[in-house]
C-alpha cells in the first residue's frame, strides 16, 4: 500500500496539499477533467476510516453522482447551478471509510455519449494525447485517474460508460452486477441498465473500493446482496470464452484482442471460442429501453423547483418547454424524443415490449454460455480513443460501437475493462464479463493479467506521485 502512504503524506501536510492542489489545477487546465475541484470541501465531509480502509485517499466523482454540498450538474446547462443537498449511498460509504472526494468530474450530458464531447460545460481531453477524446460518458473520471490526479474515481455505466473511457485512458474500469451497488444518488438516465462503477489505477484499489461501496441499501430497492455463495470456478484453471467472430474492429484493437487471448493461454487458462447470436440485437434493444426510461427520468427538469428556468416563459407550459429547449443539449433531446416515440400507445408492443423480450433472450443466451465458461473476454470498443474533431465517429457510429459493452448492462452482469498495452501511443485493452455477483472472478483474472502487464500512467500526469503505484 505504498500508494496509500504517499497520498496520506500529500494530503496530511498543508504544504504538500497546497502543492497537490496547485499541480492538479495546472494540469487540469490542459486536461479538463474536473468541473469542480475542492479538496477542502471534500475533506470536511469525510466521517471516518480506520487503518486498512480507504482513509485519506482522494477520489473524484462523476458529476451525475450526488455529493452533499458539491455541484451536481450532470454536464448539463439545465443543472449548471444545482448543488446537491445529499450524498449518494456509494459516496457515503466511501466517506465512512475515510476517503476524500476532491471534486466532480466531467461527463457527457446525463451520461449520454461516448466521448465526453456532449458535456455542455467543459471539454475534456485524453491525457495520453490531447487530440483524442477520453471516451465517455465517464470521460472525466477516466482522465483524472489516468493523469494520476486521484487513485480512483466513481463513474456510471449505462451501456459502457465506465469501461469504454477506462479503456481509452488505460485504467481499470468496473461495471458491477446490477444492484450490487446502490443507485441512490446516481442521477437517473436509464434506471434498469445503469450502475455506479469504479475507475482505478490498480486492481487492488478497485477491489478495495468495490468492497466498500457494494451491498444492499434500503434507499434502493433494486439493490441486493449476493444471494448465497459465489460460485466456484468451473475448472481448476480458469476457462475463458472468447468470441469466434469479432467483425468491425480496428486493426490495433483486433491485434490487442488476439494478443490478450495468447496471454491468457500463457497464464495456463483454457480458451473456449463461443458464439452469442443475440449480440447482433443488443444495440437496438439497448437504445429502445434506455431512451424509453430516459424520456421519463428526464421529465423532472422543468425549472419548477430547481435548476435552470427559462426567462422566456409566459405560463407553466411555455416555462417547461423553453426551459427544456434551452437547458438540454441535442443528444439528450434526441433520446427523449426517441423514448417518447417508442412508448406511444399502440406502438409499445412493436418497440418497448419487444426490446424487453429480446433482453430476456440475451440473458438466457448468456446463462447458457456461462455453463461452459467462467468468464467471457471481449473487446471493449472497436476503436482506440478517437480524435475529438475531423474524421471522427459520428453519433450513430458511436452507438453501433457500443455493442460489446451494452451486453453486460442488458444482462445485469459485472464486467471489467483491463488495460493490456499501448499501441501508437494510445492504450488498448479488453474486458472480462462474469456471471452475476462474480466480481471476485473478474478481480482474479485482472490481477493475473496485471502481473503480465502493469498499466502505465498517461504522458500527462501528476509529478507528485509519478513513481509511486
Amino acid at each position: 500500500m505504498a500508494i496509500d502512504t504517499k497520498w496520506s503524506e500529500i494530503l496530511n501536510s498543508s504544504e504538500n496539499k497546497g502543492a497537490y492542489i496547485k499541480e492538479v489545477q495546472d494540469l487540469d487546465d490542459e486536461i479538463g477533467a474536473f468541473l469542480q475541484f475542492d479538496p477542502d470541501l471534500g475533506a470536511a465531509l469525510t466521517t471516518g476510516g480506520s487503518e486498512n480502509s480507504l482513509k485519506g485517499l482522494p477520489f473524484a466523482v462523476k458529476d451525475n453522482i450526488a455529493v452533499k454540498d458539491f455541484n451536481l450538474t450532470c454536464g448539463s446547462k439545465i443543472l449548471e447551478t444545482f448543488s446537491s443537498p445529499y450524498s449518494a449511498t456509494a459516496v457515503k460509504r466511501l466517506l465512512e471509510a475515510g476517503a476524500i472526494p476532491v471534486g466532480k468530474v466531467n461527463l457527457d450530458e446525463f451520461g449520454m455519449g461516448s466521448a465526453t464531447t456532449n458535456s455542455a460545460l467543459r471539454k475534456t481531453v485524453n491525457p495520453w494525447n490531447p487530440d483524442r477524446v477520453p471516451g465517455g460518458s465517464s470521460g472525466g473520471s477516466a482522465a483524472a485517474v489516468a493523469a494520476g490526479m486521484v487513485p480512483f474515481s466513481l463513474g456510471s455505466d449505462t451501456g459502457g460508460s465506465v469501461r469504454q473511457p477506462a479503456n481509452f485512458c488505460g485504467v481499470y474500469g468496473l461495471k458491477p452486477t446490477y444492484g450490487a451497488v446502490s443507485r441512490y444518488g446516481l442521477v437517473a438516465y436509464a434506471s434498469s441498465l445503469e450502475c455506479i462503477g469504479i475507475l482505478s489505477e490498480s486492481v487492488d484499489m478497485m477491489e478495495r473500493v468495490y468492497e466498500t461501496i457494494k451491498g444492499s441499501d434500503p434507499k434502493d430497492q433494486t439493490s441486493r446482496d449476493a444471494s448465497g455463495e459465489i460460485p466456484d470456478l468451473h475448472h481448476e484453471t480458469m476457462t475463458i470464452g472468447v468470441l469466434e467472430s469479432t467483425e468491425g474492429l480496428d486493426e490495433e484493437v483486433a491485434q490487442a484482442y488476439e494478443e490478450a487471448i495468447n496471454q491468457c493461454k500463457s497464464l495456463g487458462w483454457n480458451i473456449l471460442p463461443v458464439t452469442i447470436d443475440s449480440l447482433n440485437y443488443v444495440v437496438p434493444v439497448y437504445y429502445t429501453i434506455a431512451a424509453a426510461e430516459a424520456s421519463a427520468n428526464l421529465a423532472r427538469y422543468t425549472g419548477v423547483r430547481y435548476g435552470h428556468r427559462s426567462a422566456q416563459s409566459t405560463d407553466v407550459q411555455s416555462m417547461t418547454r423553453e426551459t427544456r429547449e434551452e437547458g438540454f443539449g441535442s443528444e439528450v433531446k434526441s433520446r427523449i424524443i426517441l423514448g417518447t416515440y417508442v412508448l406511444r400507445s399502440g406502438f409499445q408492443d412493436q418497440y418497448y415490449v419487444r426490446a424487453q423480450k429480446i433482453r430476456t433472450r440475451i440473458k438466457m443466451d448468456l446463462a447458457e454460455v456461462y455453463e461452459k465458461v467462467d468468464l467471457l473476454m471481449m473487446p471493449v470498443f472497436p476503436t482506440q480513443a478517437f480524435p475529438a474533431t475531423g474524421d471522427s465517429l459520428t453519433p450513430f457510429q458511436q452507438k453501433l460501437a457500443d455493442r460489446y459493452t451494452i451486453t453486460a448492462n442488458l444482462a445485469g452482469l459485472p464486467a471489467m475493462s483491463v488495460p493490456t498495452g499501448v499501441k501508437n501511443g494510445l492504450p488498448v485493452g479488453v474486458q472480462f464479463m462474469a456471471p452475476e455477483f462474480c466480481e471476485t472472478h473478474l478481480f482474479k483474472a485482472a490481477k493475473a493479467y496485471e502481473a503480465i502487464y502493469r498499466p502505465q500512467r498517461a504522458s500527462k500526469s501528476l509529478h507528485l506521485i509519478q513513481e509511486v503505484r
Partner: protein
Amino acid sequence: MAAFDTFIGLEVHIHLLTKTKVFCDCAFEYGAPPNTHVCPVCLGYPGVLPTVNREALKFSYMVGEALHCTPSEKTFFERKNYFYPDMSKNYQITQFQEPVGLGGYFEFKTQGKTKKIRIHDIHLEEDAGKMIHDGNRSLVDYNRAGTSLLEIVTEPDLSSGEEAEDFLQAFRQMVQYMGVCDGNMEEGSLRCDANISINKKGKGLGTKVEIKNMNSSRNVRIAMRYEQRRQARAKKTGTKIVQETRLWDAENKKTQKMRTKEAAHDYRYFPEPDIPPFIPDEQFKEAVRAAMVELPAVRKERMKGEYGLQNDMVDFLTAEKSRADFYEKVIASGADKETSAKWMKGEFTKLLSREGLDISTTNMTPQRFSDLMKLLGDGTIHANIAKQILEIILEEDKDPSVIISERELMRPAADASGLENLIKEIIALEPAAIADIKEGNQKAIGFLMGKVMKETKGSFDPATVRAKLLELLGI
C-alpha cells in the same frame, strides 16, 4: 327518467393512513404549512429513488380482501407520464397491468334493499401536490405529493345518485372500520370521480361522461342527478352526448365541460424500473389476515341479535367502529344493554359533540361508563347525578365511585335517614311555609323542595325528596 337506464361507475381514491408517504419517509399532516413535509424523494430531486412502503401494501391488500378482490401474486408499479407542476417527477408512480387487486364486489344497503356492485380493480399510487393560484402567479405545495393513495374502480353498476351516495357512505364506513383511511371527504382523504351514461331501457351502456370535483357524497348524489337529467334532455332533443370530462360546480349546481386539453393524453405507461415487483409471501398474507376486522355490515347483524337492539339504535352504535367497540366493552363489564345504549346515544354523545371530543380518547373509559351505568341501575344514584358525574369524569379523570365519595353532598340515595333529618330541620326553620301548605298553597311545597335540593346539592332524586317531604308533612 323511466324511459332510460342509468349506469354509474365510481373511481374512489382513499388516502391510506400510513405513517409515512408511499415512496419516502415523510409524514403527512393535513393543513401543515406548505412544503414542510417534503424531502429530496418526494420533491423529485436528481438521483433519488422511490422505496415502496410495506404498510401501504398491507392496507391495500386488506381493502382487496374486504372487497373480495383476487389479490395479485406479483404486483408491480408503472410510470404514468404527463407534465404538471404539482407532480414533482412529471410522472406518477401508479399501477396499470398488475394492480394489487382485481375483480371483487361490495354489498351495501340502499333504499331498504341490499345492492351488490362489482369492483373492477384496486391499485396503489402516489398523490400529487397542490397548486395554489395567487394572482398572476402559481405556487405549489408538495406536502401531499407522494402520499399513499388507493384507487378503487367500480364497474358501472350504480343506477342513481342516491345509490352512489349510499355506496360511498357504506364504503367510507368500511375503510374507517378497517383503520386504513379516515374517510374525511372535506379534507380530501376520500375523493370520488364518477362516470355516468344513460341509454334507452335495455340498450346497455351509453356514451360515458366523466364527472370530477365532487367533494362530498351529497355532491355526488346531486351531480349524478343533474347529469342524468342533462343527458336525458339531450337524448330527447336528439343532441349528441359527447364523451368528455365535466367538472361539478357545487355553487351553481351544474356540471361544466372541462376546459383543458387533458382528454387526449397518451400516458405512455411502462413498468417502474426503480421498484421490483412485490410478491406477497405467507408472512405478509398472514399479517393481512390478522389485521382484518369485522366489517360494519356483519357487525351490525351480529350486534342486533346479540344485544336485542332496535335497528336505529344498532345503526347508531355501529356508525363508527370506536363507538361500537366502546359499547361492547361496556356491556362486557356487566352494564345493562338497553340503559347503556340509551345513555350512549343520549347524554354521552351530546356531551362529546359539545366538547368536540372523540369517544376513543377521553377520560371516560368503557369501564367507568359501565360502573356509572351500574350505579344508576341499582339506584345508588339517579339520572341527574349520573349526568353530572359524566361531565366530571371527562374533566377530572376519576372513577365514578371516587367522585361520589369526594363530593360529600352527593350522598347516595341509600342515606335516607340523613335526608329525613335535613327535611325536619328545614320544616322547623320555615313555619310560614308550613302554614301556607296547611292552607292548601301548593307553591309552598315547591319552595321547600327547592330548599332541600339546594342543601343537598341535588344529590337525591327529586321524586324521593318529594315523597319524604309529603310524608313528614303528613300530607
